[in-house]
């Protein structure tokens, strides 16, 4: 009984994860400039990856509880992957956005751009 619930959860999480990762791909094609594309590329992929890793973790825990010790390897290693993704994905997006703004890419259709005022100040100090 519990095994069946776990199986259903695994499939559900896989579907959700693939859906959000697909949405990230569509977003990359549809949005107009670097910054908005980064929105699609960070949020949706992280969220989708959480669900895919979650389904692997549930599968691993199920194996583990059935007495197969390989399940512990699967669970713990995937949890490590999940933490790494959660920490590095936003950091990478931040680095790309900062580099883009420094090399002079203007945000498309921006209502307001506070950051444009900042580099001018720094150059004046030097």
């Amino acid at each position, binding site marked *: 009984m519990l095994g069946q619930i776990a199986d259903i959860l695994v499939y559900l999480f896989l579907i959700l994860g693939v859906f959000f990762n697909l949405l990230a791909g569509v977003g990359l094609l549809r949005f107009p400039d670097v910054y*908005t594309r980064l929105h699609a590329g960070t949020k949706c992929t992280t969220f989708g990856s959480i669900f895919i890793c979650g389904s692997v973790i549930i599968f691993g825990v199920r194996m583990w509880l059935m007495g197969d010790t390989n399940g512990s390897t699967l669970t*713990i290693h995937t949890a490590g992957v999940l933490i790494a993704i*959660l920490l590095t994905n936003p950091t990478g*997006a931040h680095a790309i956005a900062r580099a883009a703004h420094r090399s002079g890419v203007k945000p498309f259709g921006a209502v307001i751009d*506070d950051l444009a005022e900042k580099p001018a100040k720094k150059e004046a100090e030097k």
Partner: protein
Amino acid sequence: MLAFIVTFVLCFVAYLMLTTGGADIVFLGDWKILSWDYAEIIFGIILSLIVAIVARKIFVKKSFRMANPVRWFVFIGYLFYFFYEMTKANFDVAYRVITGKINPGIVRISPDLKTDLGITMLANSITLTPGTLSVDIDEDKNDLYIHWINVKKEALEDKPVNCKFVCANFEKWVRRVTE
């Protein structure tokens, strides 16, 4: 010395977690929940010693503020709130991907956090939640520059923009965890 012990123990636990399973010699629990070889444990001790000697000054800084367990419990609570906000954010981005309605802009917020850890946590949380992406930081005042996919008109009245429009209640949670 304390830094050395803390680094050694954490490193050893991480090594044990990553190498568990498959062996039958040393184990925890009745039905081998976690199991290791002697060789793996001895090698883990040697590796942890080397890492602790090399990295103790990088890993443990002077302040032990984060050693307080209350902060860790608050941090776990924050994770639940964060996941809730993140779910909302993803449906918002999904809506914008499908309809293509955007109104972007870069705004400055002034969260007034003092520690590096706090500002890192806030910047990462902001990137993963409702239509916002941290672009740059002003290191003197710890102000963040945020790319916002759907700028609200009422938020632009103040300058710098009020935090509650951009990052929900993260600022308060992060302050509770790190300060």
